[in-house]
């Protein structure tokens, strides 16, 4: 079994700086999408001796691939898009086309899994990975918490109202949640090696994969979210007084606790 892990570089949602138009400033700190590191961890945990873990990213620089290699991926593939913007549909076409190529030339074994984080923490599109599954014609398992490859592929997944147990044939694509595992750290030596050693990386242009960056969706406006008025705070040491004050405030605001009673 070989593993293809999709990793995305994003502006850190905690520290992102926006320009005047409300777009993320290129100077914002860039990080690996956190859940993609959970996906990488899952692949590294499942991998047995002799099996490959390959990282794939769509973008214009390979920082996130260096991180993946430093953590333990065997190779990083950058799908290079010159276009200023590209959407999930375009990214998924590029990724699917690359995976098909790697399958055809034997780089990836015919028995394989694709893994990715369950959503990007930047735009919360949560769709590129599952689009890839459709384009590759393989089943997918979303929101995996635990993954087992004993005999068949089974996973405990988050589902509406709790968890579900999914059994699936392989090859398959899995999306992994942020609580599935604790991603390992890279050693300093491995980080240096990942930075210096060019042989870890392959860059493929999006158009070489037969995909044209298209954007059928256009960003037309950005805005700040409406600020919520500050909360009314009750911090008396006496719980009875707190609750009485809370109930009075709710009454005064026209939304009494327990409705009209």
């Amino acid at each position, binding site marked *: 079994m070989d593993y293809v892990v999709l990793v995305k570089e994003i*502006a850190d*949602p905690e520290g992102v700086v*926006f320009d005047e138009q*409300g777009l993320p400033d290129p100077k914002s700190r860039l990080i690996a999408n956190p859940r993609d590191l959970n996906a990488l961890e899952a692949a590294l945990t499942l991998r047995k001796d002799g099996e490959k873990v390959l990282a794939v990213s769509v973008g214009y620089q390979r920082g996130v691939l260096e991180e993946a290699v430093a953590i333990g991926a065997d190779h990083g593939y950058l799908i290079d898009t010159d276009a200023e913007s590209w959407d*999930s*549909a375009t990214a*998924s076409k590029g990724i699917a086309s690359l995976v098909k190529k790697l399958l055809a030339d034997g780089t990836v074994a015919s028995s394989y899994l694709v893994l990715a984080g369950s959503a990007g923490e*930047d*735009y*919360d*599109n*949560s*769709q*590129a*990975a*599952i*689009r890839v*599954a*459709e384009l590759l014609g393989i*089943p*997918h*398992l*979303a*929101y995996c918490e635990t993954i087992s490859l004993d005999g068949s592929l089974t996973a*405990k997944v*988050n589902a*509406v*109202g*709790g968890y*579900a*147990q*999914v059994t*699936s*044939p392989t090859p398959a694509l899995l999306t992994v949640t*942020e*609580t599935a595992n604790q991603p390992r750290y890279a050693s300093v030596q491995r980080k240096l090696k990942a930075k210096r050693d060019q042989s870890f990386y392959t860059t493929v242009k999006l158009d070489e994969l037969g995909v044209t960056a298209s954007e059928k*969706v*256009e*960003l*037309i*406006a*950005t*805005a*700040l*979210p409406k600020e*919520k008025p500050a*909360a*009314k*705070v*009750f*911090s008396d040491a006496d*719980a009875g007084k*707190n*609750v009485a004050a*809370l*109930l009075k405030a*709710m009454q005064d605001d026209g*939304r009494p*606790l*327990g409705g009209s009673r």
Partner: protein
Amino acid sequence: MSVLIVAEQKNGNPSTASLQLAAAGRQLADALGTGLDGIVLGADTLDIAVDTLYAAKHAELASYRPLPYARVLADLIGQKRPEAVLFPDNLRSRDYAPRVAARLDAELLSGVTSVELKDGKLCATKPVFKEKRLYTYAAASALVLLKEGAYVPLAGTPAKVEPFPVALEPADLVQTVEAAVAGSGVDLSSAKVIVALGGGIRKDVERGKQLAEELAGLLGGAVGASRVATDAGWLDHTRQVGQTGQTVAPELYLACGISGQMQHVAGMRNSKVIIAINTDAESPITKLADYVVVGDLFSTLEELIASLKR
């Protein structure tokens, strides 16, 4: 030209999110000057206010699996080519809708809080970068996952119900999905009031649960939980509110001993009124709350119960 909503049913009733889709869908359809159609999977009808309801009933659709769902929806959308298809935004739609979009080479916008027609284009607004900005996207047509709580539910019945032929391929049936957790089966999404418990009940879990049940009972609501409380095994997983649990938007949400991690907030931020009871006046939940009670949650719940009984 038309607008289509993908309605969810549970035990034969439409989910609250589906009634909100009916409201949003009708507004869009009126703006476009077209009809509003709907589809329900695994049922032969549903009380939902659309012009034509396509009912896809089939033994293989009785319980949820992504591949059969994707097949039926891609077939219908591919045939009818609606300008806009609205889905409820939840773990389930985020599982099957990207596959539908890829099969149709369609655009998909998830996490959308409002959708409208502007200059003949479909415009959808959604929060990005953990709610730091709102982005509005325009497209000629798209699949839209609409977050719960953004529209006032519209009740009604379909003017016409048409069976939709289900044609599944062997490849659609390769997976098995079993609900792994025998749960309380509580559908929090329809509760008007939710009393939610978090890590703060650690000191006395049983007492915390008992107080929450009693308060919820007095308010005609249900008990929910944060991931901390469900992962600790204090409350059933089916009661979990959050990104990986249920998304709710009740009239009143009481967050008791819940710090307000992003993962939890994502599931309850659209609640109309939020009361946070927490010992930490600086915890993230207080930024979102309308009312904050700083103090011991057990005695605060006791006082609330006592005052409601008075």
